[in-house]
């Protein structure tokens, strides 16, 4: 068709529409060999059309990473569904630079003709930069989340001693299981250390979770470690902790049980324990399971606290259990694990060693909650071997 015969179309003839379209246009054979390009695309990547047509394959315009993507995703998709949209790649420009683009393509597979692929090329420098920003922001967020989780787990581990001390004549075991999948730091803790003339065991639960709870847990743990040097009785030590918490204006309160363990006069061991808002401990003696301790005031709330020391003698075969409310308050639907169930398990396993009792109780509580406890669970078991 001679130039003069081109019908007058507002905005230009077909050739002009193709060549100077506001997007790049590229046709290839099925193997990627370029058979046609428009001027827009040639200009965008800085080649003359005759440098591309019949000489290059579209893959050779792609950097290596995109080339793999083309072969493993783009080409199979084209074959399977005849068209692909919004594929993000970069084109290598003649001057060595790269042009981020989005590609839409259709497979044109008419009988009797070689299959061709028609590809529209949309320069997308700004959009791709924005998307990369979003991607980087997401990666940063994921990294922070991972770090926060790691921090929580590390901190949590510091609340629980890696091993409990050896006390001659006493079998001791402890266990801890964080709530859910352990991503959030909780406030359960326990600790055991030697004091003048005996041992001290502390177990407690700071209200709430997260960083504030962790700060209070740390404070409580260290205050309780330092206290026996000055204070003679568990109730005085907990009162001291209460005063410290009020003085420090800690944002959370806590419950704790403090137990001094020493030799008894008529029994191998004697416990002196005090409950600061904590639920009683369980003492298994023969066939009997008793709750021990006098309920007292929780710590970190009121300036005046009511705290009572209780003495308990431990005989051979006796078992004592300390735990946080994650045990009794473990839930399955509307049903609580409960103290009766806990007592039954204790009574049934009292002949076992401390580690077995501890493990059995933990297993039962976790299983009761389908493997995902709603609250932290801390358990310490003392057993006087027969």
């Amino acid at each position: 068709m001679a130039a003069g015969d081109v019908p007058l179309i507002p905005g230009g003839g077909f050739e002009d529409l193709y060549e100077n379209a506001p997007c790049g246009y590229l046709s290839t054979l099925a193997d990627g060999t370029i058979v046609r390009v428009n001027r827009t695309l040639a200009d965008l990547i800085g080649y003359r059309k005759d440098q591309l047509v019949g000489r290059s394959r579209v893959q050779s315009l792609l950097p290596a990473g995109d080339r793999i993507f083309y072969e493993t995703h783009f080409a199979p998709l084209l074959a399977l569904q005849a068209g692909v949209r919004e594929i993000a790649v970069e084109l290598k420009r003649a001057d060595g630079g790269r042009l981020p683009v989005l590609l839409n393509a259709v497979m044109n597979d008419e009988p009797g003709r070689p299959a061709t692929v028609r590809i529209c090329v949309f320069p997308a420098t700004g959009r791709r930069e924005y998307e990369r920003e979003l991607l980087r922001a997401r990666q940063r967020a994921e990294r922070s989340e991972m770090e926060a989780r790691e921090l929580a787990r590390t901190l949590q581990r510091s609340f629980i001693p890696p091993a409990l001390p050896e006390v001659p004549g006493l079998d001791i075991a402890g266990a801890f299981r964080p709530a859910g999948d352990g991503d959030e730091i909780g406030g359960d803790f326990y600790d055991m250390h030697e004091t003048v003339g005996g041992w001290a065991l502390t177990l407690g639960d700071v209200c709430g979770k997260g960083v504030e709870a962790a700060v209070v847990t740390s404070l409580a743990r260290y205050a309780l470690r330092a206290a026996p040097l000055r204070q003679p009785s568990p109730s005085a030590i907990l009162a001291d902790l209460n005063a410290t918490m009020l003085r420090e204006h800690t944002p959370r309160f806590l419950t704790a049980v403090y137990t001094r363990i020493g030799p008894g006069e008529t029994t191998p061991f004697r416990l002196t324990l005090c409950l600061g808002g904590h639920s009683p401990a369980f003492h298994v003696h023969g066939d009997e399971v008793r709750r021990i301790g006098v309920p007292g005031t929780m710590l970190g709330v009121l300036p005046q606290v009511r705290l009572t020391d209780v003495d308990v003698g431990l005989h051979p075969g006796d078992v004592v259990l300390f735990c946080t409310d994650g045990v009794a308050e473990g839930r399955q639907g509307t049903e609580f694990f409960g103290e009766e169930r806990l007592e039954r398990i204790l009574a049934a396993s009292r002949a076992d060693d401390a580690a077995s009792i501890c493990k059995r109780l933990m297993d039962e509580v976790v299983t009761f909650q389908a493997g995902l406890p709603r609250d932290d669970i801390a358990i310490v078991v003392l057993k006087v071997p027969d």
Partner: protein
Amino acid sequence: MVNILRRNNVRITGKPGGRPMMFAHGFGCDQNMWRHVAPAFEDDHQVVLFDYVGAGDSDLSAYSPGRYSSLDGYVLDVLEICAELDLADVVFVGHSVSSMIGALASIREPHRFGGLVLVGPSPRYIDDDGYVGGFTEQDIEELLDSLDSNYLGWSSAMAPVIMGNPDRPELGAELTNSFCRTDPEIAKRFARVTFMSDNRADLPKVAARSLILQCSNDVIAPVEVGQYVRDAIPDSELVLMQATGHCPNLSAPAETIAAIRAFL
């Protein structure tokens, strides 16, 4: 109890009791890759198609980064399917990275495999001292970027809709690129495992009779790499195909079928 057939979306067609033929997809897609090839063997073979865990219509919840941190996890998928179906004398047809997965599986349990068809195999994609794989580590990092860029629109909420209704394509039709969709994190891990692996030392241990189908102009697995594989596997032959690119199973099914038939 893991239901392996459900986990790997195993589809069994063809002649019951016939010699088993197992078709394994490569990185980037799923068992759809074999839709033009596998049916040709249904008359005289028991055809087994499956998706690796993490791909296609497999059970995504069965994916664990630990198990699939090397090709071994994918090898286990193959061996577990073979064990579940009690297959022996299998003709394993593996595309791309699946060629190596099949080779490793045949080394691990030789009694299961009667023949290997390796379509576009590469034991190592990254160039090494005296070895040309075709890529550098930098290239593979770029691929991971490319995957990131192209999965921006991926929505995990949509995946079950598409994957759970293979017989209702209209559900997927509104979504672009509805085939071969994969969770982007899994795709990136699989890309890393695939392109960072080095199985050159394993090839001489392959005892099964092997056919290497080598495309012309394959930028992922060049001819030199195909020849390397042929030289390294003792009982192997190489067929250089007219087909170009990396996916002759899609671009040249007739030639692919004929070459496999001739091998059988």
